[in-house]
């Protein structure tokens, strides 16, 4: 038996208690007597809640294992308090068939540090022309379909995908970026891009696609998820769709809750990601959207790239930053949600979306548990991930994952004085 001692437990009610875990389940919450054989984890001052769920990570396997692989990505996820991650399908080859989906699933199970659920592409080969092997993917356990990294620009293709996936019960997730408006943009289109002379990627490129997609949701009834929402105008569109009762959800990435396009002025490609960092007004709107539930959950868009790939001029650099190991602390620092809302956005809402059992910790819950200390400050420097392209390097953030349990097994325990 493992006893998580003295933390603030996020159950049906929030209270200071011990949590006992045995045989993969929560077996007691309250004052637990510790036996000689029991492992005790001190949770005083920390929140004890359902394990974090990340709907958006790039584990790079198969095909780009020099950036990350399922084993290293799983380790990073556990260190970040995650118990479930959804692997994006833009691998090489892409996850557009059941065979590759099963490979990713099996590698995740083999590693055993986090539940790795593959997502599948919408279009075959992510080419935006024909439907991927949707039935096959569904049968392999895929629940989220996306061409992430690219937008499904062809409205006809997207409509057919939504019709088909609606019937399966899956979710269409969109990386929303109108290719014509985005052009060869490198950063948010605004005063900063104008001054730096870089081609801009307007907010409207995202909003227009989400607007269009929601029309298709009306038409098809398909569940639809907006990935890494970045523009405040997009939030208005999502809010209206939710008010109309449409099955629309949205995620936000931690970096969009903190940084603005001013970070590009450093010329450091660590500030390069798609969608791009936008303005103060967008950051404020995203924070408010996460608080009020317009945005359902946080998703890292963990996108590892090797140092040599980022050691180039900004415009030549690949897009994306890592996020698994800093996500919880970053969100806690940027937004400062109360404990219940924090776990709702980090764990419960994304778990529900995936159809997992994730919910408040009660006796009988699957013992996917994260112990998070909301007051412990640290400065990221080194990472468990194979890559270190993090915008938080050298920036103090507050909040630290003290322990992660997956199915009752400890997958991560923070060592005092350790860098991670």
């Amino acid at each position: 038996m493992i006893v998580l001692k003295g933390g603030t437990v996020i159950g049906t009610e929030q209270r200071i208690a011990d949590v006992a875990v045995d045989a993969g389940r929560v077996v007691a919450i309250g004052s637990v007597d510790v036996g000689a054989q029991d492992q005790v984890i001190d949770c005083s001052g920390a929140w004890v809640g359902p394990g974090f769920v990340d709907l958006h990570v790039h584990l790079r396997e198969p095909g780009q294992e020099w950036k990350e692989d399922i084993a290293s990505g799983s380790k990073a996820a556990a260190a970040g308090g995650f118990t479930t991650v959804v692997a994006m399908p833009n691998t090489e080859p892409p996850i557009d068939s059941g065979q590759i989906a099963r490979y990713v699933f099996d590698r995740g199970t083999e590693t055993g540090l986090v539940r790795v659920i593959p997502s599948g592409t919408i279009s075959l080969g992510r080419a935006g022309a024909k439907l991927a092997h949707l039935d096959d993917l569904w049968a392999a356990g895929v629940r989220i379909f996306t061409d992430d990294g690219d937008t499904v620009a062809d409205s006809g293709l997207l409509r057919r995908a939504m019709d088909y996936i609606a019937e399966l019960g899956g979710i269409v997730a969109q990386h929303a970026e109108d290719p014509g408006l985005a052009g060869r943009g490198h950063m948010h289109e605004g005063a900063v891009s104008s001054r730096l002379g870089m081609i801009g990627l307007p907010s409207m490129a995202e909003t227009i696609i989400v607007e269009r997609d929601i029309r298709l949701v009306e038409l098809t009834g398909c569940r639809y998820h907006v990935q890494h929402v970045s523009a405040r105008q997009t939030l208005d569109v999502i809010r209206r769709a939710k008010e109309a009762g449409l099955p629309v959800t949205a995620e936000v990435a931690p970096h969009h809750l903190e940084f603005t396009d001013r970070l590009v002025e450093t010329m450091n490609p660590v500030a390069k990601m798609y969608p791009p960092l936008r303005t103060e007004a967008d950051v404020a709107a995203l924070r408010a959207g996460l608080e009020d539930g317009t945005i359902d959950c946080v998703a890292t868009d963990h996108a590892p790239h090797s140092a040599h790939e980022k050691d180039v001029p900004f415009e030549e650099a690949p897009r994306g930053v890592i996020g698994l190991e800093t996500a919880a602390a970053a969100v806690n620092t940027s937004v400062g949600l109360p404990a219940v809302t924090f776990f709702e956005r980090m764990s419960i809402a994304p778990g529900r979306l995936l159809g997992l059992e994730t919910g408040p910790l009660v006796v009988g819950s699957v013992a996917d548990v994260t112990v998070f200390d909301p007051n412990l400050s640290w400065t990221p420097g080194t990472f468990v991930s194979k890559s270190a392209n993090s915008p938080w390097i050298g920036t103090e953030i507050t909040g630290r994952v003290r322990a992660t349990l997956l199915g009752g097994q400890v997958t991560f325990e923070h060592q005092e004085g350790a860098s991670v």
Partner: protein
Amino acid sequence: MSLLTIEGLPAAEISRLLDLADGFVEVLDRPVPKVPALQGRTIGMLFYEVSTRTRMSFERAAKALSADTMTFSPSGSSVSKGESLKDTALTVGSMGPDLFVVRHASTGAPWRVAEWTGLPVINAGDGAHQHPTQALLDCLTVRQHFGKVDGLQVAIVGDIRHSRVARSTAQAMATMGASVRFIAPRTLLPFDVEGWPVETTCDFDGAIEDLDVVYMLRIQQERGGGDVFPSIGEYVNRFGLTRRRADRLPEHTMVLHPGPMNRGVEIDPAVADGPRSLVTKQVANGVAVRMAVLLDQLSGSEKS
């Protein structure tokens, strides 16, 4: 200390560099236009973009100061073998230059070279971002002709959105007290000039009668295929410095162009070669300005 951008450089600092450059105009006019000031110094030139005039101007400036140059340009070099900018900068850096001059198609590349090598860097043009020595030579040319920059009405006309010259020269001239206007179709204006010391307009003809300086920018012909304006012909009609338009300029108004010119597109040949043109003066001043900047970078910095 590098010269990466003209942004934030105070007027006194620009004036000081222009004064120094004025001195070098005289040096370049001597029977032996060469001084030993930077003898024994080596300048690493990384030119990742084809640029005849800027590269030659820097080389001429370096040699007139008796510095040695090592010039790297990508054609037929290790870039075609896949070497990164970082590796090239570190490789050339190991050969002992005192300073880098960097031109690159990507914004910020000179900043990265400075960061990687720890050496001072002069930005010789990065993407559509900055070209500080061009801004200084433009200010010098205008100051020589008018005796001042302060109070002049300056129009920069053409593809401002994609122009590092427009960004740098507008900032420098505004800092020196000029009123700067950008004139272009909206598709060639920057998306947002909030906080810039400039005004924008799409009406060249409406502005033409109260200008002291008209600065014409090169129009990349390939943009005229319906990319950002319908055709070259339509562009010339509204934004070209044609003879008819030049005739409407006040008597004293002067014309600048950073080169290379598209004669018959943004500027009529008769105007380019006419009495209003300061174009050749700009090129000559370019050498003096770069001498001033090189000297300024390397004086007081004992070789380690």
